[in-house]
Structure formats: structure tokens, C-alpha cells
């Protein structure tokens, strides 16, 4: 599964993307797993309320099923315009 990070999540993790093998059922489960990958990951996911998630480029909630997902992106609330 391809994991993407944007904005300060990318800076804290230290990577824009990474390819991982996972059995995580939801983005929330995936976050629990990713937090164990290092201090940067743990810091990036410290405050779950500040994190938004997109699965295959569609915004979803943290309990959305990940079955069949190819790409999961984590980022803070959007600030375009």
C-alpha cells in the first residue's frame, strides 16, 4: 500500500511517501501501526484530531474500511484558495 504525507505530516515523517505491507482494517488502525515506525511518525500522528485522510484520493473518516485500497494519504485540514 502506498502511503502519502502532505504539509507538516510530510515534514515530521521525513518522507513524502512510503510503500508498506499492512493488514490494517481502517485508517485508524493504520495510524497505530505507522506510529511504531519511528519518532518522526509518532510525532506526526500525535494529535489525531488534526489529521485528515483520503483513501484512493477520496476523503474518508478514520473508521473507513481499507480493503482493496491502493493509496492512503494523511494531511492536516486544507488551506487552499
Amino acid at each position: 500500500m502506498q502511503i502519502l504525507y502532505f504539509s507538516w505530516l510530510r515534514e515530521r515523517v521525513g518522507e513524502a511517501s512510503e510503500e508498506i505491507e499492512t493488514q490494517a482494517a481502517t485508517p485508524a488502525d493504520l495510524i497505530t501501526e505507522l506510529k511504531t515506525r519511528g519518532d518522526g511518525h509518532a510525532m506526526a500522528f500525535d494529535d489525531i484530531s488534526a489529521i485528515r485522510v483520503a483513501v484512493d484520493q477520496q476523503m474518508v473518516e478514520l473508521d473507513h474500511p481499507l480493503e482493496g485500497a491502493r493509496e492512503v494519504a494523511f494531511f492536516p485540514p486544507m488551506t487552499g484558495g
Partner: protein
Amino acid sequence: MSVSVQTEDFDIAAEIEALTAPDRDIGAVVTFSGLVREMTHAGAIQTMELEHYPGMTERALEEIIDQARARWPLNGVRVIHRFGPLAPGDRIVLVIAASRHREAAFEAAAFLMDYLKTKAPFWKKEAGSHGAAWVDAREADDKATARWRTSSS
């Protein structure tokens, strides 16, 4: 082509002309353009870096336009959003809504901007002599988006 996500600047007059010239039924054109402000609460900025999610950005903007077209009788819509490094005074975003009458064009342009601010995957980082910081999402923007859920339709 109604959506462009690009690093280059855009020409507002040329974009209006391109959108309206082929359709003589258009009677109202509303244009919104957003610029980089120099002063922020932290002080004057020198640069603003805009990051986005290639692929999802275009898809999200198309979806927002589809929603606007479902709500108002629009003859044409154009959205351009820049990314990369920008400086105070630079243009960031352009929204053009064209319709037979002004009400639909005004409302659709406001709707497009409100939705774009909270649903299109862009993030701003401002840098100045005080340092660099990611811009926080504003509660006012969420409220501006929410108002379209309670009114009409």
C-alpha cells in the same frame, strides 16, 4: 477544460474571454481572484509555498464544479489554482462563473470558493523574517462552507 492546477500565473481577462466568447447566451460573469497577502498575524511574509496533492486536487475541483452545476444554471465555469512558491501580491486562485443572470453567477462563484477552501487538497506555508509556519485552517472557512448546506436546495 474547466480546471487547471499550475505554477504559472494566469491572465484574468483572457480567461473570461475564452469562457464567454463561444456562448452568446451568457448575460452575467462573476470573477473571483485571490492574492497572497503580505501581512499575517505573525508579521510580514516574504514567500508563500503552496503544496497540493496531484491527482486528488484536480478530481476534488471537478467534483466541486459538478456540485455547483447541479445547483445553479451555469453556462461556464473556470477554476485555476496555482501551487509552488509565491510572493506577496501574486495571484493564487481564479474562479469564474458565467450564467444567463447575475444571481446564479454570484452565488456559484461564492460557493465554489467556499468549497475550494475546505475541500481541495492545498496547504500553505508562509515564511518571513519571523520564521516559517504552515497556515492553520480557519473555523470561519468551515462555517462559510457549512452555510451552503442549510440554505436552499
